[in-house]
């Protein structure tokens, strides 16, 4: 193939062809193209001497490459910025400790831009072109669903940090966030018990996670709690007009507003709630989608007295968290806030490190097998203690926090360690 090209070029350089200037440049172009192709196809990474990895991943004797894929721009940037900051902090700490299997971790970061097809495209780039050993990324369920086929086809490994609706268990994903039974159901149980709530108004953003979450919530409210759903509304992601919905809520007078509004829309939602006079003294509101990151944009004074159910709050009082918050602020600034997903994202690199060291290899199949033995635990997790279950999810606690004016939450309820169950019977 290469010789043919060179032959053709020589043929063109016969005396009959007067365009020597063009010819000369054509020759150099072809020659450099050939050289370039040759270097590209040569192996870019040396095989480790002790057979540490066996599949074609970007691992050398001194370095291993991972990918970070979050939205740095768009309506989800408000939520996802923290997650990638936490992942970078964890990776820096691991590198300072000597890396994994003696190798320093190198990061390639891509921007999903709050656009799901972009997430899929960038994940394909990270797995196929950059051959990363693991990806820490995605945030919304829509982005996860968009990248899932890519990870399953290319046999990649994704550490997914967000609380989500469950009903999924992929061989190629480790879920460091809560699934529905650890968040949605526990939250409903708490508000029914503590506030005696019987009627619920459900509101969320219009995509798979809020819709599936509300489906699960409705089943739980109607079948288990014996309550009633008096309204259910969805608004498009990024929408800012909540006036009509607020009036509808006022008409129905629910005991609890159960909210799953996501990303930037939260700012408009809570500001307009406050402007309409719906404050915590008059109305109980429990949300499953507001963390310290969103409160930074919304403003603590607009949320005062409302509740969120998460597994982590920045105000948690334990020694792991104190150290974590201090280190996070040192790296990212004193004004940083740390939300639930940020903390879950922080766990990702540590869980990967533990699994790789257990497997003795970066090979995705071996790392997954090591993770599935169900005994990898992190005693230094900022949320306290977590254990990786063989269904790729984490044992964790559920906590309800009440928001204060300063943008931090007071934890008013803490559950026991809940076993993850992504496919609970009766909720499909």
């Amino acid at each position, binding site marked *: 193939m290469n010789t043919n090209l060179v032959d053709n070029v020589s043929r063109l350089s016969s005396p009959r062809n007067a365009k020597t200037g063009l010819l000369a440049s054509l020759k150099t172009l072809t020659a450099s193209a050939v050289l370039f192709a040759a270097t590209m196809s040569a192996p870019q990474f040396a095989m480790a001497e002790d057979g540490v990895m066996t599949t074609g991943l970007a691992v050398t004797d001194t370095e291993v490459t991972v990918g970070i894929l979050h939205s*740095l721009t768009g309506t989800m940037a408000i939520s996802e910025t923290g997650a990638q900051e936490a992942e970078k902090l964890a990776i820096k700490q691991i590198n300072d400790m000597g890396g994994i299997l003696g190798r320093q971790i190198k990061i390639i970061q891509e921007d999903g831009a709050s656009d799901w097809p972009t997430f899929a495209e960038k994940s394909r780039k990270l797995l196929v072109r950059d051959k990363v050993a693991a990806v820490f990324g995605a945030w919304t369920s829509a982005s996860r669903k968009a990248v899932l086929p890519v990870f399953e086809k290319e046999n990649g490994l994704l550490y997914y940090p967000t609380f989500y609706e469950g009903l999924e268990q992929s061989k190629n994903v480790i879920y460091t966030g809560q699934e529905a039974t650890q968040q949605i159901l526990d939250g409903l149980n708490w508000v029914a018990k503590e506030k005696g709530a019987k009627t619920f108004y459900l509101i969320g953003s219009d995509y798979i996670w809020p819709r599936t979450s509300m489906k699960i919530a409705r089943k739980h409210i109607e079948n288990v709690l014996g309550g009633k759903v008096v309204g259910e509304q969805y*608004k498009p992601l990024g929408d*800012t007009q909540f*006036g009509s919905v607020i*009036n509808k809520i006022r008409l129905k007078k629910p005991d609890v507003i159960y909210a799953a509004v996501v990303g930037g829309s939260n*700012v*408009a939602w809570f500001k307009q709630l406050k*402007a309409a006079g719906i404050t915590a003294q008059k109305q109980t509101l429990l949300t499953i989608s507001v963390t310290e990151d969103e409160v930074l944009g919304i403003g603590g004074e607009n949320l005062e007295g409302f509740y969120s159910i998460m597994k982590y709050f920045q105000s948690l009082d334990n020694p792991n968290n104190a150290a974590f918050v201090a280190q996070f602020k040192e790296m990212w600034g004193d004004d940083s806030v740390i939300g639930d997903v940020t903390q879950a994202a922080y766990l990702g690199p540590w869980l990967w490190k533990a699994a790789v060291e257990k497997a003795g290899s970066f090979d995705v199949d071996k790392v997954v097998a090591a993770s599935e033995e169900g005994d990898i635990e992190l005693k230094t997790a900022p949320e306290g203690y977590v254990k990786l279950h063989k269904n790729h999810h984490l044992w964790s606690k559920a906590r309800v926090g009440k928001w204060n004016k300063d943008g931090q939450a007071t934890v008013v309820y803490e559950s026991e360690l809940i076993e993850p169950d992504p496919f609970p019977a009766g909720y499909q």
Partner: protein
Amino acid sequence: MGEYTYSELGSILAMQGFAGISLFSVLLLMALGLAIIFGQMGVINMAHGEFMAVGAYTTYFLSVLTEQYLPSLMPYYFIFAIVIAFLVAGVLGYLAEFALIRHLYKRPLDTLLATWGLSLIMQQSFRSIFGAREVSPTLPEWLLGSYQPTETIDIPLNGIFVLVLTGVVTLGVFYLLYKSSWGLRVRATTQNRVMSGAVGINTKKVDRYTFALGCGIAGIAGAAFTTIASTGPTTGSLYIVDTFMVVVFGGAASLFGTIVSAFTIAQTQSILEFFISGSMAKVYTLFALVLILMFKPEGLFASKVRR
């Protein structure tokens, strides 16, 4: 429906009516600037949303400054912020017209592409200067909360503020355009550029100031919106489609048409949203809009001008 008395139902309807009027004022404020630029000058300004974002970011910037250096002025800064937002956006519009738009008056489709490029540049500038996350200025106390004429009616104060502001701006624009000598020159240039030039009107200068005015009004709109939602680099693109819709539906060259169209669209969407889900309400409103435009492509109030 839950248990309610007729007086409560009345209150809810009153609040819903206000929500409709509130949406009307939002749409009108956005569309006024574009009505001037697109309607009077025929320039398709795809960067209009970004000029609104300029106004919003100016307000945010002033909010941060006031908090840091002059905290005692917090309750008053907002009015200043609106004026300054008008000036900043206006100046930027003036520069944009001088550098970019004036070369493209004979090529309307190229202005579309050029202003689209301008909007991308502006979005990235916001990202680089203010960061990719959404920001909000700290609103003064008198804008927060609601006005309660009766026990059960809660009228959001920021809604009243935006309504009043829109009224002031609309009256200002009408006065400027129909009662001042400058407005006379603008209308002359729009109707017959060659003849206006022949009678001694500096059409280039008129164009520049008109464009600057349109962008300035967009800046006011952006400042007003900080009371409703947060601002991010891509916030402008959220508003641009609705804005064009209002202007085109009303009839591009008619300011009165813009007002009527904003009112119609806002009320239809608001009323529908109350009875059916939010997304479907928008679908039906747009569907009706498309149907009407198919029969009357010049919009509701077409100007009868021979071109």
